[in-house]
């Protein structure tokens, strides 16, 4: 009996498995679109997303972006479709404090697409700044031969929010207006 139990227990140890599956399509945005509707442009999916309890920003994603489940690291996550290629990835993250400051974070993003760090003087000219809904946005846009990053850094009540879109360089050229329009929808929760 004991031998049966021991040998059978051994069978329970899972093994490496292999299989072929159809490529996954990201979950339909409809699931995330069940939140309270926001007043926004009609081209948007009308998805105001409360990201954390308490002091969190809200936003309205363009209709063609597909919501992905948020994770412990991400307050928001979207797959941005491209023509034929893999979708570009948009992440929204937030961390306490200034997280090392703008130059360190922008250079970290540059490193992710194999670009050398830029000097503070170069960064000063590379950052586009604007204000909307009481928030200050620092927007950057840089690319290597294949990849492009559109990023925004938004200080908000003692923490820093990061919005980053990474994808094929040519595709993000087309997506940039939608990205900038999306930033205009980012608001503190109390803003109507």
């Amino acid at each position, binding site marked *: *009996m*004991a031998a049966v*139990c021991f040998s*059978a*227990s051994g*069978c*329970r*140890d*899972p*093994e*490496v*498995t*292999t*299989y*072929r*599956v*159809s*490529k*996954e399509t990201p*979950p*339909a945005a*409809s*699931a*995330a679109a*069940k939140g309270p509707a926001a007043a926004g442009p009609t081209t948007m999916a009308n998805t105001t997303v409360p990201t954390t309890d308490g002091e969190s920003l809200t936003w309205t994603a363009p209709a063609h972006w597909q919501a*992905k489940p*948020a*994770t*412990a*690291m*991400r307050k928001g*996550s979207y797959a941005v479709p491209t023509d034929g290629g*893999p979708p570009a*990835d948009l*992440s929204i*993250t937030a*961390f*306490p*404090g200034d*997280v*090392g400051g703008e130059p*360190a*974070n922008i250079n*970290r993003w540059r490193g*992710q697409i194999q670009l050398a760090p830029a000097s503070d003087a170069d960064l000063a000219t590379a950052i586009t700044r604007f204000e909307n809904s009481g928030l200050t946005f620092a927007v950057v846009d840089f690319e290597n031969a294949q990849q492009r990053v559109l990023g925004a850094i938004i200080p908000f009540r003692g923490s820093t929010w990061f919005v980053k879109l990474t994808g094929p360089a040519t595709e993000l050229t087309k997506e940039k207006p939608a990205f900038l329009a999306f930033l205009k929808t980012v608001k503190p929760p109390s803003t109507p």
Partner: protein
Amino acid sequence: MNPLVRSVRDFCVSLRLTVILLALSLILVFASTLAQVDLGIYAVQEEFYRSFVAIWQVGGIFIPLPGGYLVGGLLLINLLSAHIYRLKLEWRKAGIQLTHSGLIVLLLGELFTGLWQEDFQMTISEGETKNYSESFRLYELAIIDTTDPKMDEVVAIPDSKLAGAALVQHPKLPFRVATKAYYPNTTLARRDAAALSPAAAAVPVATRGVGSSVAVTPLPLTYKMNEMNVPSAVVELIGDEGSLGSWLVSPHLGAPQTLSHAGRTWRVELRIARAYKPFSLQLLKVTHDIYVGTDLPKNFSSRIKLTTPDGRDDREVLIYMNNPLRYGGYTFFQYQMDSSRGQTGLQVVRNPSWLLPYIACIMMTFGLLLQFGLSLRAFIAKRRATAKSVVV
């Protein structure tokens, strides 16, 4: 007979052993019920019932107890031995024998359930179609060849293999997978934001992917019902010509990590273990009814479209409380629901021995009925005989 064989036989068929084992079962149930407060039901099942020795921790004292497999196994040996030793093919003992056989089937059923049952969940949003369920607690390192524009070739390495720090080599992979570090429960933070604790500083830093900017803090294992352990690992991929680099993998990481090697593109992710099915379920609608004028739930139901790739099945089914879908050896129970987000959670159970407890109960019922019937008949016959003798 050899005295040793005789003493083993006497031990196995002893009624005293039966009583001791039943008493130990009571103690085991008592101890595991108290331990459930700290450990949760799953850990209690594994540590007290699906083990040979259980350790019951009371305060700072560790008390060893015979585990479920030991008690159940000895009970089974005891029952089988007594059955064989005292076996007499007599009609008047048929009831007892049938009842005992039912008990044996019941014990075996629990053993097989423990060994073979698969318990997964499937969370689907309205409109979404899924053909896989996910484990409640197991994870896997999925290395996915995404080169083909239509199909993904997946090699799934269970987290238990990563935890064993084994070097995994598989014919479908042009590189070996070496675990540099594995932590069964972790939290992640941005490396440049966190003042590294000593535990986090000891974690090796990944050389590729997002891991280089992430600080991993190992946490103690949790056994609470409403919490999940979320592992992280640093894995090194080693090709023919040396290391390709190391990656931090964790379900906490949202972004996919890819690499190109040998002319192919791969995605690497540590995710909740999946079990793919040869059919798919699409969630059409979730319904959450409440009693009028209250917040009390009245009914949860999920309208599902079940389809198979060969078109043999293409039908709608309604799953609600106590009305699961049974299909392909799996049972889909209505388990959780978030109607505000249009999501349903189904518990997916596969238990090849699910019929055994029913068969055992039927055998024991008929055995007892037969035994009592025979006793009653003998009793009535005896009374009639007594009455006749009194009359005579």
